[in-house]
């Protein structure tokens, strides 16, 4: 067992701090479209990027029964706003994830995504992946 506390690790907070500030900037950009659950991982190793994970979420005013549609509308609106296409990402059981390609906010990479289980919504999201956004 480690008797003393950690040999002081080098404080590696610079990139994570920059990412948290960039997340705040992203929310300011997106305004009411910015219903995002934000996560920023620890700076695990200098060779790996520190990025913002932004998963589209819900607010209490949203209709729970239309959750997938609400989140697709948000993804689509953000895609138009930022001029970025919608891409299919992964499938796990009945869950299908869609995302924007990585983009930078203040040089920090952002992974903005959501996932659906409703077949109609998945079909609509697939149709949107062929739209050209610029």
């Amino acid at each position, binding site marked *: 067992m480690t008797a003393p506390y950690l040999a002081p690790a080098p404080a590696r907070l610079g990139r994570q701090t920059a990412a*948290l500030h960039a997340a705040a900037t992203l*929310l300011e950009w997106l305004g009411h479209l910015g219903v995002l659950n934000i996560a920023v991982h620890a700076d695990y190793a200098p060779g790996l990027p520190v990025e913002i994970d932004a998963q589209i979420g819900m607010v209490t*005013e949203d209709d729970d029964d239309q959750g997938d549609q609400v989140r697709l509308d948000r993804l689509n609106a953000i895609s138009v706003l930022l001029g970025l296409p919608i891409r299919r990402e992964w499938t796990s059981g009945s869950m299908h994830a869609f995302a924007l390609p990585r983009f930078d906010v203040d040089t920090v990479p952002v992974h903005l995504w959501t996932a659906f289980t409703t077949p109609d919504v998945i079909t609509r999201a697939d149709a949107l992946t062929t739209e050209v956004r610029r």
Partner: protein
Amino acid sequence: MAATLTPAAPARTDRQIIALHAAVSLLQRLGGIAALVVSVHADWAPDFPVSVDAQISVHEADPGPGDAARFDRLVAAAVALNAPITREWATSDQQAFALTGVRIDTVPVHLWAVFTDPDVIARAHALAALNGGSPMTISDTIAAYRTSGKALRAMDRGPRPTRNFGATEKAYAFHNATRSRMAGLLADAGRGDLVHALIDVETLPARITDSPGPRPELRQRLKAARATLRAAQNQQNPPPFLHRRPAGTRTGEL
């Protein structure tokens, strides 16, 4: 394609931005202690606090096994923030411990870690025992969540002159913490359906009252959620959890 977009939600990013800045302050306060996965959820409802979730992680350069490094970081953070360590939840092979009562710039911070190594778990237990602990069942969890929600709503409805805003704020924070514990416990017990039922029972009555029409589908859903909870609370042998029971809660109350 849907003909019309969902109506625009109100822009509610202010509190989330404040929480992101509080997360930065937390990192600065902890310095080399901080290897944290920081999450700040969307501002779900104006009634609920927006908190910082900070799960202790590791750096590539940390010496030894991950559990030992995370334990050291948890203990160092407890000392740095002057906060007690409590046991939060347990599954068959994992146990979670957290600091309680941490706030940075008024934002509640949930700083926690998960361990699997029995030696590390034993040491963490010894520290948490300083706060006292007792087993927590599914039925306890449901009751604790509903009790804290009731306390909160009662306080919110109180007449203006007697309203105690400090107490209301504490009740919000307590209810929020109870919700994350509740969700963690129930999800780990494979009862994610109960999380949805609890939130339905809490939020649907207001939605039914506020909607212009009778909304029979919402009433139906509320009824189903209540039945689900009643069944879970009445089950004969609720799987035990290792969990600290929040003060002032009773079991069996619906």
